[in-house]
């Protein structure tokens, strides 16, 4: 903080100006200090509420390892689902921008249908309704096909989340691609590039920068929505917390514990998101 009160002298800046610069810097420091104090007060208030509620902290501590054991499932489901979603989003976005009527209509219907129905319904659709479709198909003489339509809970969960988020991210990717100046495509065309080359070499790398923040956002949302796979009895974080809470009639403790775990995970993911954005923005001042 030395520089705050120490605007270098002799640089040709008049004394009055230097005074003003110093005051601006001091104001900023004071603001930052007050901000930190506000956060600390807020944290103390939250802890006080927990104490006033007479939470059984020992119970929370004892159950922590059991709940934590579900983190593997949560992370696995989230990572698999976001990978699937990214793939579908790129294909979907190309479809939405395609001049091929078949490809375009499939992509548009996919986005519309998935965004227009609740994720909860979709999860059950993959898990409970799909086997019935398999059964119906067997009725048409496709023997043995039902086995492929009966999905394990984990697979159904990953498919449900991936397909759902893929639809939302399709629009994100499409918007990212469309945000790139048409002059870029023209320049690439003028060089004689094919559509694929233009997309791969020129448009996509630039669009990626635009879509990283919203996609990270989707990923953070997905980590929390992965708790929906608990509906199918996958022993992930929230499933374990809810189960333990019910068994011991201490749902409040368990829900607060698991909420804090999710919160910490999301704070960490946000940190990585910021790192990634800084990394992507290296090398140039602005995106034209």
């Amino acid at each position, binding site marked *: 903080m030395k520089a705050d009160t120490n605007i270098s002298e002799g640089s040709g800046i008049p004394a009055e100006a230097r005074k003003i610069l110093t005051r601006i810097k001091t104001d900023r420091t004071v603001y930052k200090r007050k901000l930190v104090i506000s956060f600390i007060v807020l944290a103390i208030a939250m802890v006080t509420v927990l104490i006033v509620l007479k939470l059984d902290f020992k119970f929370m501590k004892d159950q922590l390892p059991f709940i934590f054991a579900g983190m593997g499932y949560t992370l696995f489901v989230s990572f698999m689902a976001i990978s699937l979603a990214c793939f579908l989003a790129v294909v979907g976005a190309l479809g939405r921008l395609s001049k091929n009527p078949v490809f375009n209509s499939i992509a548009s219907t996919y986005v519309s249908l998935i965004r227009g129905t609740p994720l909860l319904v979709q999860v059950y659709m993959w898990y409970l309704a799909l086997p019935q479709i398999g059964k119906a198909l067997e009725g048409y003489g496709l023997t043995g096909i039902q086995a492929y339509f009966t999905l394990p809970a984990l697979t159904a969960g990953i498919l449900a989340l991936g397909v759902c988020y893929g639809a939302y991210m399709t629009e994100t990717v499409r918007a990212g691609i469309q945000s790139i*100046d048409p*002059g*870029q495509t*023209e*320049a*690439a*065309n*003028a*060089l*004689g*590039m*094919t559509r694929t*080359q233009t997309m791969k*070499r*020129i448009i996509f*790398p*630039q669009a990626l*920068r635009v879509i990283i923040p919203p996609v990270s956002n989707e990923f953070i949302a997905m980590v929390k929505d992965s708790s929906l796979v608990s509906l199918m009895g996958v022993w992930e974080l929230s499933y374990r917390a809810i189960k333990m809470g019910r068994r011991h009639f201490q749902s409040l403790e368990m829900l607060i514990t698991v909420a804090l775990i999710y919160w910490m995970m999301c704070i960490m993911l946000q940190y990585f998101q910021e790192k990634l954005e800084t990394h992507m923005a290296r*090398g*140039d*001042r*602005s*995106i*034209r």
Partner: protein
Amino acid sequence: MMETDSPMVKISNIHKVFPPDIHVLCGIDLAVKKGETVAILGASGSGKSTLLRCINFLEEPTAGTVEVDGIVIEAGENDKLRTTRIRDIRKRTGMCFQAFNLFPHMTVLENIIEGPVTVLHQKKEAATAYAEQLLQWIGLSEKRDEHPSRLSGGQQQRVAIARSLAMKPKVMLFDEPTSALDPELVGEVVEVMERLAKEGMTIIAVTHELHFARDVADRILIMDNGNWVEQGPPEKIFNNPEQERTRQFLAHIL
């Protein structure tokens, strides 16, 4: 200056209609000889940029024929090889835009070798060696590893010229290359264009830059409302124009 009889660029009876009924080009003919430098002048909205963009099919002509270096494409014809032939024309045609349109995610060098490596499948080393020659030629060797955003407008346009030249084009198209530049940066770009013309490149430039039109161009064409008004050598157009419309236009830019 090398000149042969068969034209490098020949466009015949080009029409361009933007739906529903905006008739931008009304049956334009133009033949440009090898090594010739042609400047197209005209009020904004007269159709000169559209004409230029029809030559490399960034704009699809509604009717007419385009021929570049012996490759002939009719408007509206629809055979399988058409896309390939359009790309063949584009490989032989360099284009510089008013807004430069450099690739912001690539360095200056990467911008220049992108075409040769991706489109012409040249080895990266060979493309880089030629790119370095071009950088020296435009006087920007020291900017090799910078991103375009760190360059001035004039420097960006010179890199854009080098990027086109890296494809070893037969024709260079300039679409108002100096219109987006601060006045003090125009000179450096025109100087590069002038050297290019002197080295025998075939050039078609849409420009209002007077020095280029008067001293560099071999021929000037004036366009108005999608038709040629008048054409001829610069001395004649500037000193002794035949048409009243030409006189009006020149009064505006002189």
